[in-house]
């Protein structure tokens, strides 16, 4: 237990517990932990009002390493637990952490409903496209052909796209980053924190033991520039080492296409501009995948909308506007009679 009173300005370290971090050496989770701690320090988040809720999985061990309040719950149910936390105390700043199995397999339904209700939490999905903790079975995000102990001949199910799923169920904030991009990730986390409602952040995370290199196609240094597009609201959708590539909307086929500036008479004016309030655009961006298209990272979608717990409490406040209920009166409501 950490009982010293916090210093004036908190540093990333102040958000770390004294518990030994127990991920595999080289696991992408370490970098995410660091980014989260850095982000909280940048935000000067108040540890006592911060709660990390998680399910079960390697990713879900996260709360033990954060010197905040933490609840390591059961597999798949963290969005539901977090909903209860927020309903009960909307002032808490709640982060929900889980893996692709936790949040999209067993917990897919709770993730969906938390998102659709727009409960004001940050949902961080550590997507390593594998079940780490249970020793390497494929997950609902694993690509087809993934060989794993449960799919020795390769998996055959279509993976689900976390971002498309979140968009499809009405998410108000959908963003993406990777474990190894500290600065980008921290920027995304800050945006997520600022958003009122469910901020869904998919973090591509390398599981060095069971799925090493699965995101190489866009995370490796040599391909990063060509295989990632960092979207920013109001900015043209440019990418490439020299920002010489971009996305245009092919109107007839209603698809985004990757083009090179200067080729075929394409100028920057043709390049689509990112509008993070446009769900259709976000959906198209979320669909892109290497090698034909770069992966879209950053805030794909963000829309202001009332949060669930605020509406719940507004109804309660409304019901109480003429004063708090009186139990004795309630007991007497309806027809009564007196026996003398």
């Amino acid at each position, binding site marked *: *237990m*950490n*009982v*010293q*009173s916090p210093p004036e300005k908190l540093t990333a370290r102040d958000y770390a*517990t004294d*518990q030994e971090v127990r991920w595999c050496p080289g696991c992408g989770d370490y970098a995410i932990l660091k980014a989260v701690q850095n982000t909280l320090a940048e935000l000067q988040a108040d*540890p*006592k*009002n911060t*709660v990390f*809720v998680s399910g079960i999985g390697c990713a879900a061990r996260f*709360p*033990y390493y*954060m*010197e*905040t*309040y*933490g*609840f*390591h*719950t*059961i597999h798949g*149910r963290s969005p*539901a*637990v*977090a*909903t*209860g*936390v*927020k*309903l*009960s*105390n909307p*002032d*808490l700043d709640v982060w929900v952490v889980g893996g692709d199995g936790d949040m999209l397999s067993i917990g897919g*339904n*709770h993730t*969906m*409903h938390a998102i659709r209700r727009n409960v004001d939490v940050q949902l961080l999905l550590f997507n390593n496209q594998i079940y780490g903790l249970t020793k390497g079975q494929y997950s609902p995000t694993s690509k087809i052909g993934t060989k794993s102990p449960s799919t020795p001949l390769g998996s055959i199910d279509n993976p689900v796209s976390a971002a498309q799923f979140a968009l499809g169920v009405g998410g108000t904030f959908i963003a993406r980053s990777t474990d190894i991009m500290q600065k980008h990730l921290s920027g995304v986390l800050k945006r997520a924190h600022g958003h009122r409602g469910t901020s869904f952040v998919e973090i591509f995370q390398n599981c060095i033991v069971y799925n090493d290199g699965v995101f190489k196609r866009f995370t490796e240094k040599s391909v990063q520039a060509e295989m990632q597009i960092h979207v920013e609201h109001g900015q043209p959708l440019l990418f490439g080492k020299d920002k010489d590539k971009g996305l245009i909307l092919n109107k007839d086929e209603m698809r985004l296409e990757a083009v090179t500036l200067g080729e075929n008479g394409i100028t920057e004016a043709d390049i689509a501009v990112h509008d993070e309030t446009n769900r259709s655009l976000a959906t198209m961006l979320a669909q892109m995948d290497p090698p034909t298209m770069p992966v879209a990272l950053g805030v794909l979608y963000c829309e202001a909308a009332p949060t669930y717990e605020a509406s*719940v409490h507004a109804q*309660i406040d*409304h*019901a*109480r506007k003429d*004063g*708090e*209920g009186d*139990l*004795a009166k*309630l*007991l*007497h409501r*309806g*027809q*009564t*009679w*007196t*026996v*003398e």
Partner: protein
Amino acid sequence: MSEVAAIDRPDENRQEIESAVVRFAGDSGDGMQLTGSQFTMTAAISGNDLATFPDFPAEIRAPAGTTFGVSAFQINFGARKIMTSGDQLDVLVVMNPAALITNLEDVKPGGIVIADSGAFTDRNLAKAGYEENPLDNDSLEGYRLVKIDMSRLTVEAVKEFGLSNKEALRSKNMWALGLIYWMYGRKREASVDWLKSKFAKNPEIADANIAALNAGHAFGETAEMPAELGTFEVETADISPGVYRTITGAESVSLGLLAGSQLAGLNISFCSYPITPASALLHHLARMKDFGVITFQAEDEIAAAAAALGASYAGSLGITSSSGPGIALKMEAIGLAIGTELPMVIVNSQRAGPSTGLPTKTEQSDLYQAVFGRNADAPMPVISVSTPSDGYDVAIEAIRIATKYMTPVMVLTDGYITNASEPWLIPDPSTYDRFDVTFRTDPENFQPFMRDDTTLARPWVKPGTPEMMHRIGGIERSYDTGHISYDPANHQKMTDVRAAKVNGIANDIPEQEVAVGAAGGKLAVVGWGSTYGPINRAVANLRDEGLDVSQIHLRYIWPLPRNLGELLHSYDQVLVAEMNTGQLRTLLRSEYLVPAEGLNKVNGKPFLIAELEDAIRARLEN
């Protein structure tokens, strides 16, 4: 009046009876539930004790006239203490053939059957499956049949209000009510007032209904009623003075949860997923927003339980509720509550199973699930509701135990109690002992799993409290610190302390009393939950006859009262009467090695007093 023989019967000739059982049965559209509750209210105001039982069709809105669309309401009222809604009917009022065919078997031999002959049309007879009109052949010979064309008489009575025939017929339930009021010498005022306020926006509807009510009453009073039909007097019962209301089990549990949370000084977060018959709780609590009650309709049952637990974690009282199959879905989350030692209340409104079973029928078959139905050694207190009004105190007690011992508590109620009602002496909330929760705020020497010496409860800390940040979770926790611990000895210690904590609650609950009879003797009939009423009456009746039988009725299912073993061993025989195949019996036999036998019934209906009497007699006469 061609259908009834003309006999004048002055009011003074009313036959005095101690109690009566009346059932109104008709199509779902015939308003039988309203009729029944009006009769209930009037009986209550007249000073009778009473118990009621509504019986809805399983279908939402079955086609008119079908047997599966029959809706019924039964009331047992009397000049003495009424313990059940009645074994057999003194009077059955049927508004159509389907109601007759589905309810006749419950009428006592020689009982009165009043039928709306106007509704016994060929079409309705066919829908009910009658080949000929039972009102016209001798099939009802064993009963006192009264056939009245209530349909026509109602239409006539309300003619002046210019309603369509269909609209006019809607008042025929009030006509029937008026007739029954006359039979039992009841005043119409309360119902007239009620009709006026209910139809305040449609005064012509109110007037039509009142006219029908009066017409039915007048028909009895002035017209020629058959010799077979009597007029009765049911005296006032000996009832403690005070202000009363009727209350159903769903109402009492809801109000008790609210009251308990106030006594604990907590807000409620009630998280649930609809299911029959549990949904009623959600509906009631959703209307208590002015008390700050949060209700959350989750996406499914485990989400509801998980959200309730999250709410408790955050410092309010998480409550979740469901019926059998839904409770099964919550168990993993309940296990987490047990492991993390957070308070939580789970209300299980039991229904007939297995699987979907009979959603609208009652049963007591979730005792196993409540006491044993989880992975691993996961002890949890379980308490049960015995009568429709008892839910109030039971809910308060559940909250007391949950918050004092930092544990989930399961409340077992059932489909019968949920819908049944009885008069309730409205308590004064300010007379209840408070049990305010103290959240720990002192960081000095704080450990999240440090225990209170007496209760063995761990401290409850609200997130948001300065300098108390800590982590908890479902992996085994180290004694005191709560950190993840794989230490073998620690797991043993934690398993033992979890058991000791729950077992220790036995020292904080009353010793088991004998409900009727004495400690020791030839036979104890043991029950729990909604069997209270019929067992009570059966045992009392037979003691009156001089048989050596006592009733022991349990509120606390786990842990069991500390004196229960000794008490049970003081009888020669123990008979456990349950609406299941013998679940409490298993517990009692295993705990106390008492050779308890079972009286078991799983047909979706409460015990009849007569069934119990027979079973008791059989045991005492051998």
